[in-house]
């Protein structure tokens, strides 16, 4: 029997063109996990086993150069080379987070927002993250609000579970985005409505007061300002902004207004949430 006290194991998945891997490992370790940076070849060759991990994190970057479309080739690799492992992982109450390129991968592999029919074990893409309306890569800090309006639509008692990753966060946080293909689009109206109804929209871009607003507040033209979504259980979470770049306040742009710049920043709680959920469920 494993001790309840052990640190949750996090696999930070890496391949050609992954970039934000080391800071993601740092964030998870700081939050109390045992994070390991692993090339996807380790799993394909069965040198490592996904089921030994409690959290799968797919970090940002340009996997395979974002050739063809951002995240597409890694998404296919997961879908075709690691399908059984991934489906098993998802089914076993474990956590997945995809940040930026990782979010693009989850969406294009059909892992997010998740299959409409839970019994069918297929992975089919239902939403996408496409070229920014500005047709440019942009690095800027944005405000995000946790979606609140839709929460009352959740069945009673379930409200908490969807927000595993965003628990205890303030209503408005600030994180940086850095991408060229982050515009969220759903394949049709029903899909979008269902996401909203289900409370699967986790973050929306907003202005400093929390109001939904246009460019540059919505940096890419995402439909309904959607910046992050989860699956129906709340365990699989993807977002375009980078929480691993706001672990300490000193990483944020207005930190020179304060003299305590090494306090934790807005993004850290997300990693804490993941680690604590896993620890409770070990």
């Amino acid at each position, binding site marked *: 029997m494993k001790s309840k006290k052990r640190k949750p194991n996090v696999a930070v998945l890496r391949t050609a063109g992954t970039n*934000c891997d080391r800071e993601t490992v740092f964030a998870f370790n700081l939050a109390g996990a045992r994070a390991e940076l692993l090339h996807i070849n380790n799993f394909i060759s069965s040198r490592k086993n996904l089921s030994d991990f409690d959290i799968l994190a797919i970090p940002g970057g*340009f996997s395979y150069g974002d050739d063809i479309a951002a995240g597409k*080739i890694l998404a296919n690799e997961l879908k075709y080379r690691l399908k059984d492992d991934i489906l098993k992982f998802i089914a076993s109450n474990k956590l997945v987070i995809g940040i930026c390129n990782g979010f693009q991968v989850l969406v294009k592999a059909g892992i997010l927002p998740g299959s409409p029919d839970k019994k069918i074990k297929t992975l089919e893409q239902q939403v996408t993250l496409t070229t920014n309306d500005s047709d440019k890569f942009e*690095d800027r800090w944005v405000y995000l609000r946790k979606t609140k309006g839709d929460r009352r639509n959740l069945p009673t008692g379930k409200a908490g579970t969807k927000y595993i990753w965003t628990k205890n966060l303030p209503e408005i946080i600030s994180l940086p985005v850095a991408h060229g293909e982050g515009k969220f689009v759903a394949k049709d109206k029903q899909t979008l409505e269902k996401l909203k109804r289900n409370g699967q929209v986790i973050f929306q871009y907003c202005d400093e007061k929390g109001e939904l607003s246009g460019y540059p507040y919505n940096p890419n033209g995402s439909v309904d300002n959607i910046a992050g979504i989860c699956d129906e259980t709340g365990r699989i979470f993807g977002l375009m902004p980078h929480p691993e770049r706001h672990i300490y306040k*000193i990483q944020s742009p207005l930190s020179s207004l304060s003299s305590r710049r090494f306090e934790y920043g807005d993004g850290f709680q997300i990693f804490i949430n993941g680690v604590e959920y896993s620890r409770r469920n070990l």
Partner: protein
Amino acid sequence: MIYRIEIHPKAGVFDAVASGLSAGIVELGIKTVFSLKCIPIFLIKGKLSDREIKNICQEVLTDPVTQDFKYYLSLTGEPIKASQTHDFEIAYNLGVMDPVEESTLKAIKDLGIDNVETVRTAKRYIISGALSNQDLKTIQEKLLYNKVIQHIVENPATSYPSQFRQTLKYKLDIKYIDILDASDRRLEELSRRGQLFLKNNEMRFIADYFAKQKRNPTDCELETIAQTWSEHCGHKTFKGAIDYSEEFSLNSKRIKRKKIINNLLKSTIMKVTKKLNKPWCVSVFEDNSGIINFDKDYNVCFKVETHNHPSAIEPFGGANTGIGGVIRDCLGSGLGARPVLNTDVFCFAPPDYEFSKLPIGVLHPKRIMKGVVSGVRDYGNKMGIPTVNGAIIFDNDFLGNPLVFCGTAGIIPKNKSKKKAKKTDLIVLVGGRTGRDGIHGATFSSGELTDSSESVSSSAVQIGNPIEEKKMLEAIIKARDKNLYNAITDCGGGGLSSAVGEMGKDLGVRVDLEKVPLKYQGISYTEIWISEAQERMILSVPKKNLKKLKEIFDQEDVELSVIGEFMQTGRLKLYYNAQLVCDLDMNFLHQGGPKITKKAIWKSAKYSEPNFSCPSDLTDPLKRALSDLNICSKEWVIRQYDHEVQGGSVIKPLEGILNDGPSDAAVVRPKLSSRRGIAVSCGINPRYSLIDPYWMAASCIDEAARQIISVGGSLKTTALLDNFCWGNPEKIDRLGSLVRACFGCLDSALAYKLPFISGKDSLNNEYKMAGESISIPGTLLISAISVIEDTNKCPTMFAKSAGNLIYILGLTSDELGGSVYFKLHNLLGNSVPKVYPQDGLITMQCLEKAILNNLVASCHDCSEGGLVVALAEMAFSGSLGMDIFLKEVPYKNQKSKIKNQNFRNDYILFSESNSRFIVEVPKLKQKKFEKLMKNVNFGLIGCLNNSKDFNVYGLDGELCIQAPIDELKQPWQAPLRW
């Protein structure tokens, strides 16, 4: 069988790419286009079932939410029948690498489909609107493609199959070049035709050497010598002898001086380092970059390179491979450093340059700028290295020859900072494959550009593959940490020739060229040896480690090949299928060509002085200065770079309440668990160089130093890099001004006690047209790097709080020569800013202390545009107003040339005197701050207000500038907000 696949946007989906291109067409002045489609084409060769090809289209090539696909068994798309519709396709030239092809092949294999042989890509454009043939040509040539790397497909049915043609295997045919009996004219012709860029006396020197060997050289031997002796690799100007004389006026006396310099580099730049002998300088001027100490476990390395000529003819590829190259310099330093930041500095002609005045063969500066920025963006972002600092200088003289400086800093464990290849070590080539790309890059950059450069030297241009380099980086760092190799270097200019030759010069080398993995067949032994194909590095590996090394590289999907061995022979021996194709004495090769003394003269020129009087209202001149291209916001560029990846960003390139103010220097924490950081900054001002390169160099050093101080750094831990970009050193005036600049570096760096740790020169930055050779202004880039102990204390440049006091530190003099203010009046002037290091040093040391003692709320250095531009930037970035009183500015007035106007508000406001800072101090800390500054020339010149008005009171106490801060910010942001 070849399939043609087209990817179309779904109806109703916003097409951002098409919208971006449409905007680009309007910018060209063509307003008749009403619709545009850009359709990616994939050509796939292989035996595939219908189900398989559909599967590939659906699963790999299309985004089902936003795109549809069509596939054909023919090579031609469906014709468009609408009138006024222009339908054409653009493909890469044969031999140009398209990284998408490789990843597409991989993705198809992931589906379990193994019988696809080759993938090619192209783009189809369907443009609707009334366009003349000329309009269409303009759109194609100025926006959609560059003929150096791409072409318009005349007829898809006949021309696409050639994209799949296999090239023939190369059959060995050793070529000897007859130079033993050649006349001078023949030697000249051989050098020119072979693009060797060797001078006649050098050719003669080579002929004499081979006469003693009683044989003619092979083409490979001659190429190797040309590469090694090129200005690019050998730096013969900086290391050769110079007969220098200078002539200038001082206190109305004409002074003439003469000097024989044996080695310019050793007598100026390196002399500073040697004299200062800083214990924290770990490796200087010996490795691919300079290395200084960071903390108890790590060192930090820094290098800046230029990639000017390739960027002039193919801006994207040129800048792309420029940044790729300098990243490899970092990776090839010591036993390999992990890159933590990039810098970039560009010099272009103004982006609004009139199209009609553009010389033949020259790309428009706006296109160059957009291409260069995209190239840096693509490579830097994809490598996951934040681009954190830079500058852009605009001047007409960069029209034919833009400058592109790229820098990289990295961290490296202390015990991995030195290297040495050992005899019997294997020569291992890792990374990308070798093709014909980049042949003659090193020699090409050692000559002048001409209007036919784009056709003659197109093979010198390459496109990078950042993902290949990223894979290689990860593999190398892993192998480094397991101590699997003794030395490493990158394949840059000169390719294998330079990398292997350099690494083995104290030993001896044997290489079997047929072992080098190729992109395609048909490449000769010489081409393999001198190709500058990107993303390759050379390792020196003990035989026993080869197996372990290969395991690591296999895991990262990086190719590794043993191509030879280092041996104690003192000779460079190259074989192709066991046939000797090159056999040179390492001493002959590396001792360089004939020693000659170059002549250099610098004479100061006299420029006209202003004859206008000081306007009473200076609000408008301030707005115009803020709109000057060299001062205005570069946000459009900066946002396209990921300047925060790796999470270490502390001081960002843009700072302020709305994150849009211009920061002085960047600060990055390379170790996320530590408070320690590094600051990087840059000093550059080619306009000063026209007046006096000595003071230009001194000013650049002062600027780089004060930017470091502004963000909380200390001169005690600051090191410098020099990058000289100059004209043709064979011309005595060009060389004269270069020498003069070097002495400026020597004196100022010594006085500030700042060692140089690395540098690079790029000479021959001239553009020949209509028989006349136009040189760039002598341009020196000084990059500074500094270790900061506690980044918690780093101040930013934007105003923080109403009621806080505003100080100026440092003396203001009438130094407007080369200033932006004079440029507004189309003047250069003569009173170039000088550097007084005794004063500058005290100012900087006291300010450093004040920052450490938390007395400073914000700090901004005064540079181009003078103190008023610095003040305005602080105010609008902090969204606060300011009241400023000029009579409080410490001011040393030199006798004005204009009658009855000895004191001019405009001169005080816009003078660009060095060593000055604007500092914001809370009232509560006034006493402490002033006490600390008692030995500094300082003035309490005003305070911040809540009104959002920027007010400046002149020497007579009357308002001379009054404007709401938004009205100052707007002209500052407008010019480059594209």
